[in-house]
Every structure is written in C-alpha cells, then in structure tokens.
C-alpha cells in the first residue's frame, strides 16, 4: 500500500475526488452531502459483496 499513489484509494481524499468526477445516479454537484453518502455506501457495498 505504501507504493499506491492512487488518490481514489485514500480516505477522505478519494471520497472528495470521486465526488468531483463520478456521475452519482445523475445527482447534481450541489447535492454534495448526498452524493458523498451514496459514494461511501457504494464502497461499503463493494467491500461486503
């Protein structure tokens, strides 16, 4: 992990980065709080599945 420079894999930097670049179910950027909750929820789902 020490060599992994990908910002996506860091928290909370990855969350901020993904919020800027992902299309989160079509939600507008100004709904940042909701977008971030959904991104966190997706990562949690991916970790569980």
């Amino acid at each position: 992990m020490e060599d992994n420079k990908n910002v996506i894999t860091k928290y909370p930097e990855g969350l901020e980065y993904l919020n800027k670049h992902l299309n989160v179910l079509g939600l507008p950027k100004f709904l940042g709080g909701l977008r971030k909750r959904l991104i966190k929820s997706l990562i949690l789902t991916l970790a569980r599945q």
Partner: protein
Amino acid sequence: MNNKELVAYRTKLFRDAATFKKPDRIPHMSFFVTWKILGGGYTLNEGLRNYDIMTKVIREHQEKYNFDVIFELGVRNIVRLVDHLGGGTYIIRDDGIEYKDNALVELEELDEYTADPTKFIWEKGMCKKYPMWADGTITVADLQKCFDEQKAFLGYYKKIQKILKEEYGVASFNGQVVPCYPGVDFLFNSILGIKNLSLAMRRMPEKVDAAVKATNELFQVPGIAALKRTKGPNPKVCYDYDITLLVHTILNGKQFDRWLWPDLKDELDILNEKNLTTRLFMEGSSKPFWDHFADYKKGVITMHPEADDPFEMRKALPNCAILGGMPVELLGRGTPQECVERAKALVDGLGGLDGGLVLSQDKMGTFKTDADPENLKAVSEFIVNYRG
C-alpha cells in the same frame, strides 16, 4: 378480485396472522432464493447476471406456485456490481454459490479499524477484496461502471416489484427503508469473519466492545434514529420491519448478552412501543436465547425458525407468531402427500387459522434439491383452500 384488491387481501392475511387475528386463510410466503433460478431450468450464472432472465424466473415462480409474497426478488446476490472490479466474496457456479469467509480486518488491525471503520474499509479492506484497489490501478471509469450497474440493479428491483404487484397481485413484504444492523453481526458477516471474531471474543473482549461500538455508527445508530421516527404500523406492507441475524450461531449466552442483545433489544423495544410487526430470522437455532423474547407484546415478533421445532417454539413463545415450518428437506425429498400432511399438521397444531402462522420454508431455498416442484405445487394448492 382484481390485482389491487388481491394485494390488499394478501397484505391483510399477513398482518392478521402476525397479530394473532383470525385470517381468512393461512398466508404463504416464498423464501426461495437461488432455487427459483435452478428450479426454473436456468443456471445461476444466467439468472444472477441477466435481469431479463431473472424477471422471467420470478414470473414463472409466481405463475407456478401462486405465493402471497415472494421474499427474495433476485436481489440478494448483486454479482454484476462486483464483476466490474474482478469479483467479490461469492463464487458463482452454474449450480451453486460458495462463500469465502474473508476477513477485511486481521486481529492485529482491530484497533486501527475501530479508530475509523470507514477509513479502514476504504484504504485497507478494499485492498484485500480487489487487487486493482491494492495495486492502485483502479480508475474513476471502473467505479462509474459500478455506479451505473447499481442504477441498473435498482431499476430491475423497482420493475420486478411493480410487475408482481400489478400483474400478479403479490403483496410487498416490508417497507423498511433504513434498516438497523447490530455491529457484532456486521463484524461477523463482513469485517472480521467467523474465525477472527471468534478469536477476538476470547482473546481481546474489550477490543470487541470498542469495535462493536464503532461499527454501530455505520448502520445501527442511523437505523435506530429512523426507527424512532416511524409513526406506526404500515397497513400497505405485510411487516413493518425485518431482522436477519447470523452471529448468534457462534455466541454463548454471556457473549450474546454482551455483544448482540443490547442492540437487538434497542430495536425490539422500539417496535414493541410502537406496535410495529417484525419478522425475526435467526439462522441456525435461536433456542438458547428464546427467554429474551418472551416478554414482548403478542404480535410484535414473528419468529422464523430455521433449525428449531416450530411446535416447541410456540410453547416457549406463545406471544410470537411463527413464519416458516415447511422443511426444505421434506419439500425436496418427500412426496406431495407427506408435504401436505406436514402443512396441515402445522396449521392444526399451531392453531394457525386463529392467527399466528405464516406458512413458508424453514431455510432459504438455495439448491435444486431444496424442493420438488410437484411437492411445492401440492402445498401451495392445499394452503389457499384449507379452512380447517
């Protein structure tokens, strides 16, 4: 009866049964998961990876067996979501699913996890699951595919619910939006795994206390807050709430009281206070813990016994309705007559026509041998016509 009226009729059957009012007849619920796919003549890879095939599977399941509710609508194994990242916990074969007891957290990492579960899962847990996360090759495009897949999944789920309701008059099982999930069950199921949680409970119980508390912030705390906001029973769904638990299968009485009961009690106390109904499915046996449920109001808890005898359960917990009772072993290997006799014995023996019984399978129907279609058809026909 048109389909709208049928939905209302079926929903009332469940609500009456759960609250010990005399139902018009015994409600019948499908608790089949992957059996629906295999029993329909498809492979699991076809069914789980193609929403059009899954839609056909659900339609055929309802057309053949005429259930009042189908508990699982092809959404339990979201394999397409993890396919984009190279696969996850489940190994899907054409005829069965294997589950890997993966630990996202090793014992020596427990303190770090507890300090910030989200950060740990994001930075280390995901690395253990997905090589492209670990080596840093994951891209925004990869995660965009996951989000798009999630959208497709939600679209499928909405569509299949609509089809069942509007074309078949099938009722909705429950309407709970933000579920609680006790931290220790999540540690067992997804974070530490069976082996590491067992070791941690023995070797470092105080650290398990802290890990449970930290984990509760993910689901349990928001779930309790949402439950507290619930105004009262929802007559449009069969149950107001649903609880499934796994971790008790490795807990002794003291461990149950220390790590699971406080959170489970929080949920049940609110349900009790608000007169909400819940199914409580504790996989394996729940018998060692039955005394914990004995004092709740009649009609709040519907127990779904998997490995326990429903007749014994009724004697010990006369305040709890029972959902289940049909062994998948019998449905798979018995004769139609034996299956109907079992269903009749359940209804008569538990006094189900006066309330307190929903007929269903004891286990999640998973393998092709979990039911013979002729046996299931015989039980389905019997139960809608039996009036004592």
